[in-house]
């Protein structure tokens, strides 16, 4: 090799270049990696959730929805609130299998097109979205417009004292199979569930 002493395999110049580059790389990584990790940290931190009491069982009927405001993010006022539409399960229309978490049906008001708040219009027995004309039927199934899947739901349970409580949100496909909560606009039928994988930061129902 030119510019080397006898028996040298790496020249001093090349060695110094490598050392300088590595030192620079280490120094740059020393501030980029922690900063990056800090920025994407929230993607991996799963918030614990609390069951929120929303009223005694006698508040709810099979015939119509009752509106309940629940706090999904603490400390930011109204921006942290969300709305649930709650009714009693009606075996005549609710064909999905019954278990301990759906004696009461609680629909999220979040439109499954892009997330605007839907409103239950009792005269039409439908949920209507103000943004782009999404319409859902009484069970929250898509009846028209751009939404890609039925309205999300909340787990519900009834305490021994006869109080209805709301748990975490979950998403459903058009057959009302449950999925961990997805954002609006992400279909869950067919390949949808693979195109839009579950995330690491959504509240889940603790295994009981």
């Amino acid at each position, binding site marked *: 090799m030119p510019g080397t002493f006898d028996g040298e395999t790496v020249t001093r110049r090349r060695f110094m270049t490598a050392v300088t580059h590595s030192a620079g790389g280490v120094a740059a990584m020393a501030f980029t990696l922690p900063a990056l990790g800090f*920025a994407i940290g*929230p993607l991996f931190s799963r918030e614990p959730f609390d069951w929120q009491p929303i009223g005694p069982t006698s508040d709810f009927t099979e015939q119509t929805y009752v509106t309940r405001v629940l706090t999904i*993010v603490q400390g*930011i*006022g109204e*921006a942290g609130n969300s709305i649930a539409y709650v009714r009693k399960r009606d075996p005549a229309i609710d064909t999905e299998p019954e278990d301990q978490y759906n004696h009461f049906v609680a629909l999220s008001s979040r439109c499954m097109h*892009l*997330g605007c708040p839907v409103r239950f219009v009792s005269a039409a027995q439908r949920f209507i979205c103000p943004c782009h004309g999404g319409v859902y039927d009484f069970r929250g199934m898509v009846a028209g417009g751009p939404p890609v899947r039925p309205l999300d739901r909340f787990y519900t349970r009834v305490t021994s004292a006869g109080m209805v409580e709301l748990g975490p949100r979950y998403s459903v496909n058009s057959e009302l199979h449950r999925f961990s909560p997805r954002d609006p*606009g992400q279909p869950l039928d067919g390949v949808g569930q693979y195109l839009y994988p579950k*995330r690491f930061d959504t509240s889940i129902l603790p295994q009981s």
Partner: protein
Amino acid sequence: MPKLPAPPLPKSLQPRPKRPGENGNGAVRPVEAAQEAGITVVDWIDERTSLSGGIRWLLFRKVPKGINWFYTLGSATMFAFLNQAVTGVFLAMFYRPDAAGGAYESVRYITDDAFLGQLVRAMHKWGASVMIILIFLHMARVFFFGAYKYPRELTWIIGVVLLILTLAMGFTGYLLPFDQRSYWATIVGVNINGTGPFIGPYLSDFLRAGPEFGATTLSRFYAIHMMLIPGLIAALIGAHLYLITKLGISAPPWIKAQEDPGLRESQV
């Protein structure tokens, strides 16, 4: 138009050329020093930096025949960006990224109470739309003049990144007033990002800092809007301008290359 001859001045009033050190001992008189102060400072800096060469390189270039007003659209976009930068810095002195109501209140204060606040906010708000319009007009000019062709592809690619960053400025800035429109538009916008397959859900989580619109979503948007993207845009405008100066501005497509008559004769 012929110039009228100046009336003859009496000898005593005629300006005479200055001679340095007129008082005899060769020293510069204070009056002279004061008169030349500006030049002295510029000279002092230039002697140490050679900046004047760079400025001449950037500003006193040759441009091709036939360039027209459409060539000013890029500079117009840059001035729109500078307007956003300046007004934005001063808005930041009053703005509070507090999702519990402080953000809305601080914007209300800027608009209703602060001296000239309404004007500066309006300049920023309308300037944002102006910048978007200008950047598209500039891009259209470059496209229709074929100015993106060799060797200017990289200028175009940097331009595309600038366009995306500018749109991202619009998206992140829209949330800051934190009224109903801001909030729901951001919900919708973040969910549109979420519809990208595979990475969409994680991109939404990144933008919101979690699965739901949360306490730090607003400050995250604010930091991206006022620090991250403006820094990138400023740096990329620098690269864009470097390439424009380096390559020279392109001639309009209807200007034909001029043949050298001498060359033609010698070829016959």
